[in-house]
């Protein structure tokens, strides 16, 4: 690309090989360094003996335009994005409701009286407008993201999930008791742990605790049933559910009062029906 055949590139005056200098000559590492500036060490391209014409002249301008486009893509796409969290269903989760309550309380105590519900409605409107404006701003970079992958979608740990879910899988024989075979992060119930502990499966299972992923959660349940049908030939049913539990406060941990939580999103599937199907291998 451009820099390789630029003046001063390999073959140019600063290339130690072509200049005849030993390429691994000892470095005076203690030599005083001036200000430590980029300008002190980064060298400008050596002037070409012949004024560039045609492509050679224009390529620098094209590069200049491209790099500005790239910088704009990186910085503008970094603007806040309500993204996947922009869902009324998701906002009903106790974790999100707790955030509204804390913020509303803070604002009310500081001269801006507002209830959590009013705050939620105002933020819903604001987030909608923000999403619209942001979408318009980043539209020129959509092809860049689509074909090259230059995107900035990270919303890493924007908030602790105070009411997280964890996957729980159990099987039972006809008329028998449920036997847990897998529970997230359990050292005891470790069926298919290698798969479920992988960070990509963790990400998927994390998402499936939210109501807007109901369809995909159902797909995961069917897959689990297929695997359980093979791995537990004596079992007749599998139960897939999520344990939703508030994370303990430091005080609760020190006083050994860990919240119990409740099971939800329960799906029970017949393993006989799974065995009736051809194994998809």
């Amino acid at each position, binding site marked *: 690309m*451009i820099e*390789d055949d630029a003046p001063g590139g390999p073959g140019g005056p600063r290339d130690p090989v072509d200049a005849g200098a030993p390429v691994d000559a000892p470095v005076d590492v203690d030599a005083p360094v001036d*200000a430590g500036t980029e300008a002190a060490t980064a060298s400008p391209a050596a002037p070409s003996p012949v004024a560039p014409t045609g492509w050679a002249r224009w390529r620098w301008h094209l590069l200049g335009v491209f790099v500005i486009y790239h910088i704009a893509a990186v910085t503008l796409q*970094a603007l806040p994005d309500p993204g996947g969290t922009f869902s009324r269903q998701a906002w009903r989760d106790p974790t999100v409701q707790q955030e509204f309550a804390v913020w509303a309380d803070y604002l009310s105590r500081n001269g801006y009286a507002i209830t959590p519900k009013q705050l939620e409605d105002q933020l819903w409107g604001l987030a909608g407008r923000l999403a619209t404006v942001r979408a318009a701003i980043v539209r020129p970079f959509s092809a860049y993201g689509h074909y090259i992958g230059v995107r900035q979608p990270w919303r890493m740990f924007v*908030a*602790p999930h105070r009411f997280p879910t964890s996957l729980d899988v159990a099987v039972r024989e006809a008329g028998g008791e449920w036997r847990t075979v897998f529970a997230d992060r359990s050292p005891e119930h470790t069926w298919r742990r290698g798969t479920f502990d992988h960070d990509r499966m963790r990400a*998927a299972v994390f998402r499936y605790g939210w109501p807007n992923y109901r369809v995909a959660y159902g797909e995961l349940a069917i897959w689990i049933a297929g695997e359980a049908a093979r791995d537990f030939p004596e079992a007749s049913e599998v139960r897939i559910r999520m344990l939703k539990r508030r994370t303990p406060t430091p005080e609760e941990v020190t006083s050994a009062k860990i919240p119990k939580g409740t099971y939800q999103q329960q799906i029970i599937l017949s393993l006989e029906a799974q065995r009736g199907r051809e194994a998809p291998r």
Partner: protein
Amino acid sequence: MIRAWRAWIAVLQRREDALPLAIFRALTGLAVLWNLLPAVLHGVVRVIWLDRDDGGYRVLRAAGSWLVQAAGDLSPGLVWGLVISTLCAGFLVMIGVGGRVAALCALQGTLAISMINTDAKGSYDALLCNSLWLLCLGDGQATLSIAAKRRHGVWIPRVDVAAWPRYLVILQIAAVYFSTGIHKVSAFWTPMGGFSALYYILQQPTWHRFDMTWLAHVYPLTQVSTALVWIFELTWPLLGLALYLRQRPGDGRVRRLLRRFDPRTPYVIFGVSMHLMILAFMEVGPFSAITIAYYPCLYRADELRRGWARLRRRLRSAGAGEALATPEA
């Protein structure tokens, strides 16, 4: 306007020692391997990237990046082809063979695989794609590579490459941290929530490697860490500004201060420590490796060489001191 444009072109024409970009390249190649090898070894490829008819858990026929859609059908052959070719390309990027073509193959493979099942995607997929694109733009294998060894006869020749790709690397990491910081709108990241975000995040069963309730006994430490992480992320643009000011000519008070006190040091120490803690306590894939790969590009090659030589000298003198202190048998 014309003067500004000329100055901009002059910045793009700057050249510098290729070492920082080469370290970034090698670590990014390693991160590509880290991204896919565990998925292969734990049998996750079939589960998350194959269609339900082929043993996966989701219906994925219509999913995928432009490359997968152009291929027509999300068959097991296509998925495994993408995984294997991306692993090979990542390995070539790591050892420094294949240059931009290898980086582009690794990028397109990573992008294609990550878009197949978006529910199993991590934020690090996008960052890894951005890293690989920067390696398509810059010459990352001019040094510290097999290609350099074959061309120059030494592993780390001093070769100049364009400086602007390294500037884009710095911009990218500043954008990552700042964007992450401004998205942290939860009260728990602030005094209102008692700076308790990190404590509660580490209690989430989704991400932790082992039970983290022991943190309750060092809760104040997690509060301090929460405040520091929040400040660290939000102030990254200031670090970029400081780096810009350091290299500008002039001898004003701010520049003198910035040259005497290197603002990168606290950011690098805190950032690397933070990522190592994440690695130790949480299972978030190659996220820490991808991010740490950016740090060497905060320094010029001469600074890296000086730092390395100083470290070796210290290790040598520590070794000599130990030998003197140990009586011969």
